[in-house]
């Protein structure tokens, strides 16, 4: 199963539970919602699979696995597009 990790283009910081990310290569800033922050926190610990990320979210939020998976998949696609996350081949 594919694994995802943070790229070297990003740096992030957390204040009062809010996560702010900078792509210093592009000079663009991003904010994450609560669920996005859970995903990000897990990616900060090391490469993750879609399943491991989904499990992390389910352990904190009441959401059915199918919806969770498709939402996280969408978020990962956005993060990959912004070069904040990359898929490990």
């Amino acid at each position: 199963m594919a694994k995802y990790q943070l790229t070297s283009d990003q740096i992030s910081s957390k204040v009062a539970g809010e996560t702010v990310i900078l792509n210093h290569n592009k000079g663009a800033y991003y904010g994450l919602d609560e669920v996005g922050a859970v995903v990000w926190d897990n990616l900060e610990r090391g490469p993750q699979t879609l399943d491991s990320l989904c499990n992390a979210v389910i352990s904190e939020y009441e959401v059915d696995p199918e919806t969770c998976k498709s939402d996280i998949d969408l978020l990962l696609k956005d993060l990959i597009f912004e070069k904040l996350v990359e898929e490990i081949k």
Partner: protein
Amino acid sequence: MHHYKAFGLNILSEIKLPEFSDGDVDTKHDLYIQSASFDLPTLEKTQLYRRGVRAGFAKDADENLYLHWNNVGSFKAMNGNHLIVNALVEDANLISLFTVSEALGLILFQRGLFLLHASSVQVGNEGWCFMGTPGAGKSTTAAAFIKAGCKLLSDDLTAIGFGNDGSAYIVPAYPQLKIWDKTADGLHYEKSELQPVSEGVNKFSYQPKSDFLHEPVPLKEVFFLHKARNRKPLVPLSAAEIPTEMLKNFPLPSQLLTDVALKRHFSQSFQCTRSARLWKKKRPDGFENLGKWVNECIPEQLIAG
């Protein structure tokens, strides 16, 4: 040769910089300010204006930084310890004004300090910092705190450093605060204690040379001043606003903040929040309300003293 102290640096200078505190002749210098001509690389336009002149900026392959103001002067900052000034006018006051602002800022940037277009004062044992768009009241607010017994730390350019434990501190700049004529009147400054500013505009400068301290002061409160009536008078900065508001108040050419330097700026922006509270504050209306706010802020022992 002239010996000065400013921004925590012992400075040896070939040109006169009367804004600075006198330095110790026997102390080894951290910064050498040289008067010489040099070649300028191709310049880029910047967002910086001083005296109505727009600055040009360049960086060369050796990481030397250049600023150029037409018909005023060119500056070359090397290695955080060597600033070359190429004066293009005779007016020594004008050269020193341009040297002690953005040109010196390039040196501080090369030394890794976090820079803000802000004025700062010491309230009790705390460093408080005021910023905002021109006219939002940075210097006026600082002047009100000083009138109430606080000490000046910096005007216009504030340098923030970080200790080994990561805590942020303000490096005192030099003893000069420029205030408007009407601010001097409104805050009841004694005109005899003020110097008229050379530029002929209706500004005065307050120069507390004798009691200016050069010891770093812990950064505790940061205010982004604004004049919008439709916003709350005081709200904490949200996480997302922290790096962008700090960026808006970066006092040097934005060209400096790319890649590694932008990353450093981002980290330092958040590092400030570990020591200090960051606020968006509506500037008090009128001198009376400003004075009232200042008196609410400052510790009682300071008023008593």
